[in-house]
């Protein structure tokens, strides 16, 4: 049972950490609980479909369909996060201002929700499909205590996610969206680097050389802190040049995009610019 719980935990924690950051980043947005839950729901449904179609996906693109699919899911999440942080850069300041002022529900609009629901769904789908295939194998192999292992692993993973979420909520409001944006950018950079690994594994992209360094002895990705850092900031013990390149490029592009979006349009007076952003 413990072996089952451990595997489920390993998969769930990755999705749980991503969901926590998204939950924190959408703080103050009305109906966000419903949106997050629907994201998780779509993710679980998607995971079942992906597991069912695993054979078909694997056969695509002359045998590297799985890698192409995973890279596609990861890069789609990166795009959604990019969209969100740029959107937040142009609307976030007033969002924070209104929350501080009255503490009432913010009329933030649908943009951050719709986009981040997709991020949540994709995270759950990717990790969930592996859990489904694993449990199917255990079931076929006649292993016992399946549901107990599943429940234990799920509970442990969700607990870590909740800890991160409530930890993030303790960040002072003044720095809050700055912090969640930074976390989202690092998350996106890590996902982009992961996508490169899949494309290299499929021989669709070159690794651009041997791994650059090895910090595996210091912090293994197999350890809990190593795995958490892998999800949160893209930590890899032995990064290949293309991974580092994708990581740096994502951080640079998203930071620059955010800075440009946060700047009022040229020639507009501050008042007009603020009004234009609200509409």
């Amino acid at each position, binding site marked *: 049972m413990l072996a089952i719980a451990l595997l489920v935990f390993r998969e769930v924690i990755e999705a749980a950490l991503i969901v926590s950051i998204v939950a924190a980043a959408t703080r103050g947005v009305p109906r966000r609980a419903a949106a997050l839950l629907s994201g998780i729901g779509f993710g679980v449904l998607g995971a079942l479909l992906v597991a069912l179609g695993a054979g078909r996906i694997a056969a695509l693109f002359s045998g590297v369909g799985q*890698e192409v699919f995973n890279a596609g899911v990861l890069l789609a999440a990166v795009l959604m996060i990019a969209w969100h942080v740029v959107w937040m850069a142009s609307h976030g300041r007033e969002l924070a201002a209104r929350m501080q002022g009255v503490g009432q529900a913010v009329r933030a609009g649908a943009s951050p929700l719709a986009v981040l629901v997709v991020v949540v769904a994709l995270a759950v789908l990717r990790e969930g499909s592996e859990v489904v*295939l694993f449990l199917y194998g255990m079931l*076929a192999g006649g292993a016992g205590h399946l549901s107990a292992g599943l429940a234990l692993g799920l509970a442990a993973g969700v607990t870590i996610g909740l800890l991160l979420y409530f930890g993030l909520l303790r960040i002072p409001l003044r720095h809050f969206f700055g912090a969640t944006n930074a976390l989202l950018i690092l998350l996106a950079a890590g996902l982009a680097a992961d996508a490169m690994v899949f494309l290299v*594994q499929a021989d669709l992209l070159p690794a651009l*050389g041997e791994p650059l360094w090895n910090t595996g002895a210091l912090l293994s990705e*197999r350890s809990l802190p190593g795995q958490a850092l892998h999800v949160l900031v893209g930590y890899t013990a032995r990064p290949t040049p293309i991974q580092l390149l994708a990581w740096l490029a994502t951080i*640079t592009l998203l930071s620059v995009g955010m800075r440009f979006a946060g700047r009022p349009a040229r020639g507009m007076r501050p008042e007009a610019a603020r009004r234009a952003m609200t509409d």
Partner: protein
Amino acid sequence: MPYRIFIFLSGVLAFAAMNTARIAVAAEPPSFRLAIVNHRFQPATLTIPANTKVKLVVENRDATPEEFESNDFDREKVILPNSSAVIFVGPLRPGQYRFFGEFNPATAQGVLRVE
């Protein structure tokens, strides 16, 4: 200006990468086979050449799915029952690299010897 540093670093990296890539581009990568039988790898130790990209064909002869995984050389791929999967590995420096079956880690353990 952290962006300038990032852009500079990316440039340096891209340049270094192009040089390495020119060497790495060669003919069809050499192919190696690995089987999964009763949740164990056969052979449990596989030797591949250093500084070379290789094509690893992993055949799962079990009736249950397995996930071929390695943290040491950063690979993961689900292999369905009674089917084969192609995984490109490397180029790697000489050394010992562990891999395992994520779904059956108690028995499915292997070592990639790169020399």
